[in-house]
């Protein structure tokens, strides 16, 4: 509404040299190989051994990085004017059906100025604590995405100020739904699920201090606790 003579919109692609062709729909993308995102060279130069592996799958560059240095690397990608990955598209995790394969935490970043897309990955081998540094101090958008990832996979994002369940209710006792050992229909019988859901107070305002998943275990039915303690997996 105000006169906006000084207004300058942020135009994506502004970091590219003048006269660069406009972006086009990618065609005939090879399965493996293909052009590597130029950021990878800069990353290798800057972080060296922390860059563990680089794959180009279906035209997208995936960089596997050391899990403890993720926040540092993302911070550099965000701040460096030659990269300017200012847009965090997604944070999520992948667990494979092969139980030996490590769980992956995946970050999708976009550099609007250079029209680049990069995927960062941290591998979390089974048996190690599922912890990675949070990128919340860099991207506010990571807030709910990390909370969701914690809710669904149990991955702890160290440094997130308010890491608690987001989609399931606080005190949900069955575990982390998107883990592969979690059966599709849940661990409990339908009647038990409904009983627990109806017992929830719809007006509760949960805070992080009040409840945690570990406490909820004690509220389980007696037989369920015994079965889970004996290491039973209730898969289908």
């Amino acid at each position, binding site marked *: 509404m105000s006169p906006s003579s000084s207004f300058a919109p942020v135009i994506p692609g502004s970091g590219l040299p003048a006269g660069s062709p406009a972006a086009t729909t990618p065609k005939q993308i090879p399965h493996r190989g293909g052009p590597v995102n130029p950021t990878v060279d800069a990353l290798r130069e800057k972080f060296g051994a922390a860059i563990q592996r680089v794959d180009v799958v279906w035209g997208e560059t995936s960089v596997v990085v050391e899990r403890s240095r993720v926040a540092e690397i993302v911070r550099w990608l965000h701040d460096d004017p030659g990269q300017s990955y200012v847009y965090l598209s997604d944070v999520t995790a992948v667990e494979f*059906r092969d139980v030996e394969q490590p769980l992956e935490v995946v970050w999708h970043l976009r550099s609007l100025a250079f029209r680049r897309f990069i995927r960062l990955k941290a591998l979390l081998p089974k048996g190690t604590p599922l912890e990675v540094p949070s990128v919340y101090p860099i991207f506010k958008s990571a807030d709910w995405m990390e909370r969701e990832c914690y809710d669904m996979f149990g991955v702890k994002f160290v440094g997130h100020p308010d890491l608690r369940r987001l989609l*399931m*209710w606080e005190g949900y006792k*069955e575990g982390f*739904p998107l883990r592969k050992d*979690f*059966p*599709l*229909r*849940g661990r409990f*019988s*339908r*009647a*038990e*699920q*409904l*009983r*627990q*859901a*109806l*017992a*929830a*107070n*719809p007006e509760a305002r949960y805070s992080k201090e009040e409840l945690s998943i570990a406490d909820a275990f004690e509220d389980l039915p007696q037989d369920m606790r015994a079965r889970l303690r004996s290491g039973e997996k209730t*898969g*289908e």
Partner: protein
Amino acid sequence: MGLTPRPEPNVVSYDPKGGEGWVTTRLDFLVNWGRANSLWPMPFGTACCAIEFMATAAAQFDLARFGMERMSFSPRQADVLICAGRVPFKLAPVLRRIWQQMPQPKWAISMGACASTGGMFDNYAVVQGIDTIIPVDVYVPGCPPRPEGLIYGIMMLQEKVKRERAADPSIRHEMEPDPTSQLYIPPSAINELSEPFGNAVHQTRSGL
């Protein structure tokens, strides 16, 4: 089971031994006629079905023809709960609370496959049919039902309202859930109702 013919909607049956006179039955007719044509809906819209419910209320299908244009967003002034959309477990206590807040007489329409049976969401998060939480009068099938389908369900509910009799105390009976488990129906029945059926059993195999 088997289909039984529905009685004529506008006829109130007269039972000479019941001690009801001509006046009571005519009064029933008048009250039911008034009720059936001015039902105030409480739209409990959660998902896709709510969009079709909005389409039903909008110009083309015009819910006002049934005396239902007055959406009652407060459950305390509502007659009929229209549960439009899937109900996950996290929403179950909310639905129960809203149902308990509605005054008698009250009715419930379960709109769509997910509200009625859980539909395609046979997983850890979704209630397998809201009739495990609240009593339901009319089920409207479809995913989502077309507005015409919902209107047909509403007309069926109107028929049901028109057959009610003030002398019958069971109509106004508020169901009380089991005090410990808060369930209306026994757990074994819920488990049986929620069993996967048909194709779903095979589709959810992991592996391959």
